[in-house]
Structures are given as structure tokens and as C-alpha cells.
């Protein structure tokens, strides 16, 4: 199995990879900018075009990618552990459906005004995600069971329900609206102000610390609620707190980016292969790896296809799935 030294090696490698991507990616893009010119003077001169592109366009977008990738991967690890299901991802509890419903509703209603620095589409998407979480919890509370199966079934059911409503809105929308809806539903890390990114950073970092602090409890929970309880875990409290935290992180990201597929499913599994299933390592590596992975994918989307941008969700799946499957075939030992 994975020894401590191997875990540490993977962690160090991931940190290195993350730093390289974080600094390197904003330099790449349809316009070439040079590293030296960007950091020529501090603060950057107003006529320094390279620094302007770097700091006001690419860095906020890069940060958004990093935060979203980290949040998705972290939430994926947590949902897989708590629901004891390798197929669980941040969207298993209906967050994708709920936020899509919110966003599509805002577009259909023609709401363009913003509030507190966020657009109505973003705010509605967030509210939709929260609505789906509340529905899942209410269902679980009504039948007095927070077991994995209950949450899973409630989440999947609610997701389908909201997806049906999304299709209904889409069906009734005019051409401009349906284009806007499709664009949102595909997920993108479009240009965004640093302000919103900073607020998102507070949510993601706080969420990660809370979840990391429950690492040992998540190890025990993934072995079953009974065992966790006899080893001293207050299971209901840990399940509620971890799932709520992961859900809020996901909701906050999704409302800004749209549902970006596969990061939250694939990145945790890739790291399970390399660091095993000790959640303190798994959470840290997945967060950094997910951040780097999404930033890399986004850079590909905006750099190598001329002036058009590919939806980032397409790239994450097109790259992530073959990588995961390749690793599965090579390692073979997984999921016996």
C-alpha cells in the first residue's frame, strides 16, 4: 500500500505542479506576454500592457479556476467519503440542477440588474443551489435518516426534477435567451472582477480548513457509520457539518462558473490511486491538484483555439476521463 514517504512525495510533487501552473498559466494565452515585462516595476506602470493583461484579466480568471478546481475536488472527496460511494461528486446532492434552475430562471425572467457586485444570474444560481440543499435535508429530516442511501436518493431525485424545469425554461425561451442559457449550462470561467474572486476565496479557504479538520473522522465514516461511532465519532454531526460545508463551497463556485463537470469526480480518484484513502492527504492533494488541473484546462480553452473559447467543461472531461481510465488500467488494483 501507500507508505508515508510515498504520500509525502506525491504531496510535494502536487505543490510544485500547482505553483508552476499558478505562475505559468497566466503568461500563456492568445496574446503573448513576457514574465520579465510583467514584473518590471512594482506597482506596474499603467502603460505596461503585459502587466495589465496579467493582473486584470488573466490573474482573476486564473484565481477563479484555482478556487473552483480546489473546491470541486475537495467537495468530491467529502461526498464520496460520507456517501461511501465512488460515483459521488459535488453535484450528487442536486447542486448542479438547483443552480442551473436558478440561473436559467433569471435569464428567462430577463433579470439583468446586479446586487452587491454579483449579477442576478449568479445570485439566482446560488439561491437555486441552496434550495436544492434545503430540499435534500428536509427530505432526510422528515424521514429521520441521514444515511448515505437517503441522501443519495433524495439528491439524485431533486437533481432530475430541477433538470426537467431547466429543460422546460429552455424549451420556452427565445433565441437570445436560449443561447445565454446554454452558455451558462456549459460552464465557463469568463472574465470576472478580482472582488468577487476574493470573496469566493474566503468561502473556499474557510471550507477547506473545516473539512481538513475532519480528516480522521472522514476516514472512519468511509468505513461505515457504526464503526465511526464506536471509535468516537459523533456521526450525525460530522455528516451534517461536512456535507453542508462542501455543499456551500460548491454552490458558491457553481453560481459564478456554471456546473463544470468531472473535476470533482476525477481528481479525487486520481489521488486515491497515488496517496491512498487517508483523507488528510487526500483532501490536501486533491485541492491543489484540482486547482492546477482546472487552471490548466482553462488555459487550453482560451489559448489554442484562436479567438473562440471552448467551454472548459468539455476540456476537463476530454482530458480527465482518459487520464483516469489510463491510470485504472495501469494500476488495476483499484476498487477490488
Amino acid at each position, binding site marked *: *500500500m*501507500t*507508505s508515508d514517504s510515498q504520500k509525502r512525495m506525491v504531496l510535494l510533487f502536487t505543490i510544485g505542479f500547482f505553483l508552476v501552473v499558478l505562475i505559468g498559466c497566466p503568461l500563456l494565452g492568445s496574446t503573448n506576454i513576457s514574465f520579465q515585462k510583467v514584473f518590471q516595476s512594482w506597482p506596474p506602470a499603467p502603460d505596461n500592457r503585459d502587466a495589465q493583461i496579467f493582473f486584470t484579466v488573466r490573474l482573476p480568471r486564473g484565481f477563479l479556476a484555482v478556487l473552483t478546481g480546489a473546491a470541486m475536488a475537495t467537495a468530491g472527496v467529502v461526498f*464520496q*467519503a460520507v456517501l*461511501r*460511494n*465512488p460515483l459521488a461528486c459535488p453535484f450528487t446532492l442536486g447542486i448542479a440542477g438547483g443552480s442551473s434552475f436558478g440561473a436559467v430562471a433569471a435569464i428567462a425572467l430577463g433579470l439583468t440588474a446586479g446586487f452587491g457586485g454579483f449579477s442576478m444570474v449568479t445570485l439566482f444560481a446560488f439561491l437555486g443551489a441552496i434550495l436544492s440543499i434545503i430540499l435534500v435535508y428536509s427530505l432526510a429530516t422528515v424521514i429521520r435518516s441521514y444515511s448515505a442511501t437517503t441522501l443519495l436518493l433524495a439528491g439524485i431525485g431533486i437533481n432530475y426534477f430541477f433538470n426537467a424545469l431547466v429543460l422546460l425554461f429552455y424549451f420556452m425561451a427565445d433565441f437570445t435567451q436560449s443561447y445565454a442559457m446554454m452558455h451558462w449550462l456549459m460552464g465557463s470561467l469568463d472574465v470576472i472582477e478580482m472582488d468577487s474572486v476574493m470573496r469566493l476565496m474566503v468561502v473556499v479557504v474557510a471550507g477547506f480548513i473545516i473539512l481538513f*479538520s475532519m480528516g*480522521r*473522522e472522514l*476516514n*472512519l465514516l*468511509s*468505513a*461505515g457509520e*457504526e*464503526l465511526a*461511532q*464506536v*471509535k*468516537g*465519532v*459523533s456521526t450525525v454531526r460530522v455528516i451534517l457539518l461536512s456535507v453542508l460545508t462542501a455543499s456551500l463551497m460548491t454552490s458558491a463556485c457553481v453560481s459564478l462558473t456554471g456546473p463544470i463537470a468531472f473535476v470533482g469526480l476525477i481528481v479525487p480518484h486520481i489521488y*486515491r490511486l497515488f496517496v*491512498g*484513502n*487517508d483523507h488528510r492527504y487526500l483532501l490536501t492533494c486533491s485541492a491543489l491538484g484540482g486547482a492546477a488541473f482546472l487552471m490548466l484546462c482553462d488555459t487550453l480553452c482560451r489559448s489554442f483555439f484562436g479567438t473562440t473559447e471552448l467551454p472548459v467543461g468539455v476540456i476537463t472531461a476530454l482530458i480527465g476521463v482518459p487520464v483516469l481510465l489510463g491510470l485504472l488500467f495501469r494500476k488495476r488494483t483499484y*476498487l*477490488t
Partner: protein
Amino acid sequence: MPLFEIQNLSFHYPSLSKFELHQTDLKVEPGDLLGLLGPNGAGKSTLLKLMAGLLTPQEGRVLLNGQPIRAIPVRERAKIMAYVPQSLHFTFPLSVWEVVEMGRHPYLARFQPVSHKDRSICERAMELCDALDFKDRRYEELSGGERQRVLLASALAQTPQVLLLDEPTLSLDLAHQILLFEIIQKLHREEGVTVVVATHEINLAGRYLDRLVLMREGAMVADGTPAKVLTAKNIKTIHGVDVTPLKVGGKVPYFVPKGRRS
């Protein structure tokens, strides 16, 4: 003060109308090496889960060191008592060491790493359970007998006063059954751990345990030393099978079952 005191305990599962356990009283004294014997469905596992605080009784109560079990915070409970389930499956595979280290959880604060002392407690637990050899292997790769020893070591890593074992020899071959009972006996003698073990093995229980409680259909039929309790008549009562006692040395005879009709 008894370690466990079970008073007038009644329990049934919500989905079943049939009573699992009715008005049971039992005292477990510190230093007991107690076996719960009885056929499938006699309520052995249910009683253990109630003692572990995993189930809430409809009536009566379970006291651990004089306090109602469900009133003790789970973390504190886990320092006094360790429970070993019949079997365990991990959705995401862990190494044997990681499974044993879980036993230290009740002693570790949120961000506190495992100390040298914790490690040596885990290593000693594995040594006592004959599990040190496969410390770096994956739990899922082990045989049934090895898994049981790892689960036992993980329980022992909690440094508990009392161990609750739910049919630890289920699906083990003869040699591993004997090995497991020898380990249990060693833990009791050398480590001073109180043990409550649910089992089907009449002969092994008679040979290795000090006190036996016979159960049938959610009620206790007999309670005492193996020599007193293990009689052909009592075994007929709980299992409905005629047995022939065989004296092969030792105080307790072995029991050979006859066919149901012969």
C-alpha cells in the same frame, strides 16, 4: 461497581413486530471473560449493540461504569469500550496500519498528529493480536482470520477497559478459531481487559471463557461458569439439538451433536 449493568432492557427493531429482546437484566463485572451463546436470532448481536450504545432501547437502560451509555459522549465511550463488528468492508481501501491507527481517534484532538506513543500503542496491539506481519498490506487483501485480528488490534488500540466482540470466529477455519480464542484469553489474562464475546462455538467457549450466558429468542436461559451452564439439557433448550457430552480432560465436556432425527 459492575462495569456494565443492564436493567430491564427491552428492544425491538422498528420494522419487525417480533420482540428481539425482552426485560433483560445482566451485570458484567470488571475482569469478566463472558460469552453470549445462543442460536441465530437469539439476540446476542442486538444485546452487544445495545451495550455499545449503537441502538437505543425502548425500555430499560444500559449503564457503563454507573452512567447511562447514551449519556456518555461518544469520544469518552470509545476510550472505555471497544466494539468489534462481525465484518467490515471499506468502500475505499485502507492499509492495515491505517485501520489500526483509527483506534487512536478518541485520544487525538482535531489537528493533532499521531505521536510516537500512539504508534507504539498500535504496534503493541498488533503484536498482541498476531497482526504485525501484515501491517503494510491492504485490509481488503487479507484472509478472514487476518481481518478479524486486525479489527481486534484496532479495537485494542483504543486501550479500552472492555472489549465487545460480535461473533469474531464467524466463517473462520478451525485453526483460526482457536488462534482467535487464544488471543482473547491472552488479552484477558495479560492485559486485564474485560471481554464480552458473542459466539456460536459451544466447545471453544467452554474451553476458553470463564462465564457463559445462554440466550434463546431474546431471553436469557442460563448464566454461570461453563461447567455449570454447559449441559446437554441446556444446549437442547437453546438449540433444539440433542448432544452427547464427551469428557476429554478439563472440567468442561465437549459436546457432539446428534442428528435431529436420529
